[in-house]
């Protein structure tokens, strides 16, 4: 019981080979698309790598880039093979290569699927990475004189302005961080000394936020100092004031941004995977049809093509036996051609 058996006439075989040649070339293009999607994602992640704590998320774009390149090579080879499979004499050259090629392509399409699924599953790791990265960025906001961190203030300010967000989860995160460097604090002032003494770690904490948290949608000039003190500002209640500062946290904003990018990329990769699977099926049919033609001896007659020669269970069993016997050496007792002397 062959799986998926279809009978092919000579003309149909030739048409199949031509069609597969075309599809393989289209697959080379989709491989290029895969490569460029990976590159795009890599660039997007690297733009904001200062607010991400670990770089492990980069394995998603790297996976896409590698599969894209491999797809181009495999499908280029496939196109060449299918082009030459139109007649049986040239097919003989490729006969031995074809089965390993199909097996490799099958595993490769599996990798494409893994790449697509990774795009959807990376969200939790991304969130964790952003949480830690933003927390560190806010801590080092004031260290504009420390080498390696001097541009972090600018990065955070531009991030908050561009994504219209404030702090990690909200603007209150800035109240727990000293974001004004000691260089700009008048240590002789009693107000400053009181604040420094008011907490265990000697940090200058205040209920103020940087200017980049200010919302442009507010009808009122921005209130960024003494945000929680209603009496400090005329006609101001911070509980009801929604438009003064950006309400969204930057973690959520960045997460949404990257999730939407990766969802679209994941969808495209899934479609590419389906297309690759289709091409693979076609190549398998072509291979089996051409082999049956050779077996029958007459290049012009009809032949059958299938996906598996026997049912799935039998194929699995026979392959398993092959693998089991791979390690075994030749035993005289098992050879049916030799009559053991008993």
């Amino acid at each position, binding site marked *: 019981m062959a799986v998926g058996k279809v009978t092919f006439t000579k003309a149909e075989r030739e048409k199949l080979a031509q069609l597969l040649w075309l599809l393989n070339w289209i697959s080379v293009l989709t491989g290029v698309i895969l490569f460029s999607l990976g590159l795009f994602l890599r660039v997007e992640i690297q733009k904001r790598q200062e607010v991400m704590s670990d770089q492990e998320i980069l394995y998603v774009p790297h996976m896409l880039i590698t599969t894209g390149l491999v797809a181009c090579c495999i499908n280029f080879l496939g196109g060449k093979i299918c082009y030459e499979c139109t007649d049986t004499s040239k097919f003989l050259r490729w006969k031995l290569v074809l089965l390993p090629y199909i097996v490799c392509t099958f595993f490769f399409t599996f990798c494409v699927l893994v790449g697509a699924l990774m795009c959807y599953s990376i969200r939790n790791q991304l969130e964790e990475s952003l949480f830690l990265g933003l927390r560190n960025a806010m801590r080092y906001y*004031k260290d*504009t*004189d420390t080498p390696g961190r*001097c541009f972090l*203030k*600018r990065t955070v*300010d*531009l991030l908050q*302005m561009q994504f219209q967000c404030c702090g990690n989860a909200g603007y209150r995160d800035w109240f727990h961080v000293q*974001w*004004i*460097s000691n*260089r*700009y*604090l*008048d240590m002789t*002032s009693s107000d400053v000394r009181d604040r420094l003494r008011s907490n265990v770690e000697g940090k200058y904490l205040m209920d103020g936020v*940087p*200017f*980049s948290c*200010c919302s*442009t*949608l507010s*009808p*009122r*000039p*921005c209130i*960024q100092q003494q945000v929680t003190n209603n009496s400090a*500002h*005329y*006609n*101001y209640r911070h509980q009801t004031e929604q438009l003064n500062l950006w309400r969204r946290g930057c973690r959520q904003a960045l997460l949404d941004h990257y999730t939407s990018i990766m969802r679209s990329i994941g969808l495209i990769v899934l479609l590419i995977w389906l297309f690759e699977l289709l091409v693979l099926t076609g190549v398998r049919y072509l291979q089996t049809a051409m082999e049956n033609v050779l077996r029958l001896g007459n290049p012009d007659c009809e032949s059958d093509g299938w996906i598996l020669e026997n049912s799935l269970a039998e194929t699995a069993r026979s392959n398993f036996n092959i693998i089991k016997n791979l390690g075994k050496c030749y035993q005289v007792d098992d050879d049916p051609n030799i009559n053991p002397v008993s």
Partner: protein
Amino acid sequence: MVLMKITFPLQRRVRLAQGLWLLSWLSVLSGGFLFCLGVYLKTELIRRAEIMDYTDIHVVPNILMMVGLASIGTNWFASRVCQDSLDATRFPRWKPFLLGWFAMAVVLCSLLLAAMVLCFALILYFLGNGIRFYRDTDVPGRCFQKETIDRLQMELRCCGNNNYRDWFEVQWISNRYLDFTSKEVKDRVRSNVDGRYLLDGVPFSCCNPASPRPCLHTQLLDRNAHYNFELQTEELNLYNRGCRQALVEYYMGLMNRIGPGVLSVIFMQASVFVSLRYLQTATEGAMALENPEDDSEGYLLEKSIPETIEDCKSQVLTLLKLGPVDPGDAEAPAEDKGAADAATSG
């Protein structure tokens, strides 16, 4: 004295017609490009419309769009003419329109040049009084002024009209948010003639993110208000550029990108003009010959420039007189008649 005479054998005429056909189709494409350019410029201007009082600047993209559409039409006409130029039966029907075509091409090119010059002149006048209406977030028609100016200052990295001090002369905090029972507010309002609340502070959108220090945008002129802060030496705290200059530089950059394109369009149109003139005169010359396939001569002007101007002048004058008889002509037949009478009587 023919102006710039060139001899055209049949093969060269054919080549000229083919080349002109290609050139005119390229000009059709460039006409489309001009139209799209006009649309792009118009959308850019509409985006900044709220801070620009000077709405006459819209004439520039309007001209570009009009010229783009007109040049698509005229260059399509030119391609039809040169397609028919090699066929002696079809060419004559285009003849009456050719003079009008030349005039139209000259008008289009000069309009385009005028638009470019106008653009550069207008840019220097366009930034309006936007910052005066910053605080009017409750006035219909002006309620988005604040948001627009904040976004403009942040995007273009500028502050105020000429620099940040412009904000010191304008009341940018609405009276709704001022506590008029407080002494400080009353003092400030009384301290100037118009009763405005002026302060030495700027909106947050003037803040420069590249500053190593958290932004200081209030009490800028007060030396004691901020620790270790010197307004004169602190260059990175606020943006130093004025928004007028920033907008000018932005639009100059835009023009620098667009300008060469427009100039090349004008150049292409001029080459179509010259080639069509040569083709017209060469083909007309060939049709007048006994053997149409012989060499003919093409030229730009039949007579030299001063003589052509004289001819045009006399033609225009005759037209303006609406066809009355010339006094010289009236006398000559009378004299002839008199001479004839004298001859017959004598």
